[in-house]
């Protein structure tokens, strides 16, 4: 990301590179998470790669959402939470004292299960982040940022003539795409999605999945999902969590056709015994 004051609107379109064996975008090593005395995450190490979607699957309470939140320090907002171990973004430890958490959360954006547009206009929803981060110098720049973000989020054509309408007046699926556009507007490097489609109907879900497919060329995406078919459809890598432990992590096609671990197999084939 550029440290200069180049407004987003003047940056060239990021190229979608071919998959390459580059260093992981984010890396977790020996991560433990505690809520007070209770340990929620147990010695998890995993890489998140660029140009790909990584899915976290596992039964309720397995820790996948907790772990997801460690990736952009959202657990900081929970008083009793304590995170141990190392998590790096481009090799830099995000839990080091010098890390600007606000900046971190722009670089590692998050989309939640329940769409949560601000009670502002569609335009303001998207402009808010760039404005706060000083990413646009003029109205023209900001207009360009908003348009580009909404285009990338697959929402532009539906809302371009009503940008001043309230974001909360949109349908559920549109609201979720607005939230994705909002995350994109601050030019993140990683997008975390916590069950982004759980509250949506199949058509809205399909549109979001198609959007995820388009976005993965630009961003590293991590998606937590209850829906195994969705994980199978959208991701290239899948990580199976159980009781706070990372049981298995591998290529999605391998995990779903020939998993190595018995627990993984039992979970995905519906043998909860």
């Amino acid at each position, binding site marked *: 990301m550029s440290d200069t004051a180049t407004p987003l609107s003047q940056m060239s379109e990021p190229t979608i590179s071919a998959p390459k064996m580059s260093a992981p975008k984010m890396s977790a090593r020996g991560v433990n998470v505690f809520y007070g005395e209770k340990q929620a995450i147990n010695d998890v190490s995993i890489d998140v790669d660029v140009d790909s979607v990584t899915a976290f699957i596992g039964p309720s309470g397995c820790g996948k959402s907790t772990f997801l939140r460690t990736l952009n320090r959202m657990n900081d907002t929970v008083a009793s939470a304590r995170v141990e171990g190392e998590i790096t973004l481009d090799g830099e430890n995000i839990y080091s004292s010098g890390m600007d958490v606000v900046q971190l959360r722009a670089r590692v954006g998050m989309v939640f299960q329940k769409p949560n547009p601000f009670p502002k206009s569609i335009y303001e929803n998207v402009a808010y982040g760039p404005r706060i981060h000083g990413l646009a110098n003029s109205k023209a720049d900001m207009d360009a940022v908003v348009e580009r973000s909404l285009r990338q989020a697959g929402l532009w054509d539906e809302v371009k003539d009503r940008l001043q309408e309230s974001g909360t007046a949109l349908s559920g699926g549109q609201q979720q795409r607005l939230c994705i556009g909002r995350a994109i507007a601050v030019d993140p490097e990683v997008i975390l999605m916590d069950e982004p489609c759980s509250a949506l109907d199949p058509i809205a879900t399909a549109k979001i999945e198609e959007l995820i497919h388009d976005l993965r060329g630009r961003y590293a995406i991590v998606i937590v999902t209850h829906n195994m078919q969705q994980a199978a459809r959208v991701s290239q890598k899948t990580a199976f969590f159980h009781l706070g432990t990372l049981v298995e992590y591998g290529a999605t096609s391998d995990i779903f056709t020939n998993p190595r671990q018995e627990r993984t197999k039992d979970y*995905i084939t519906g043998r909860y015994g």
Partner: protein
Amino acid sequence: MTEHTVKAFDNDINALRALIAEMGGLTEEAIDNAMRALATHDIPLARKVVEGDKRIDELDAQIEKLVVQTIALRAPLADDLREIIAVLKISNVVERMADYAKNIAKRVETIRSTSTVEPLSLLPSMAQITREMVKGALDAFVARDPVKALQIIERDRAVDDFYNAIFRTMITFMMENPKVISESAHIMFIAKNLERIGDHATNIAEMVHYIVTGEKPPEREKLTSVE
């Protein structure tokens, strides 16, 4: 292995296994009866084999329908998925084996008298190994036993050897006994059918290995055949 939480899924898989078992049993019987009819020139028995093939075809169609339904409704994954795909392929293979048995039975009627063709005596031994392979492959499927499956694959070599021996013998016999070329040709085709049944039993065994391990067994050395 633990049952599926949704019991109906287990019911579907059990239904498929039962259909394959029935189909396999009928096919083993058909091969058996076809060879017996050949040995004793038993035309009624031969006709029974030909008639019986209809039921086997029906079972194949039933299995295919149930497989498609199970995939659509249950979205099977991992070993469930591999098993269901393998069941579909095995059903197809068993149906082919039954067709070969029917083909053998059909020739019983057209062979005027088999006693004049000496090399015929090689056939029962070949048929015996073939029958054992078919039974063994289907047993390995029921037991999900990849070790047993590999043994079946090994035995195919013996069947191929038999076929090559019969082929060479028949060529010589036909040159020396042109009057019985017609019967001789039928014998060749019957031997070829048995050899193909052996190949198909090997396919089933490979499928069993795939279901259990997720991989096809290592490539076996293919012997060069006379053809």
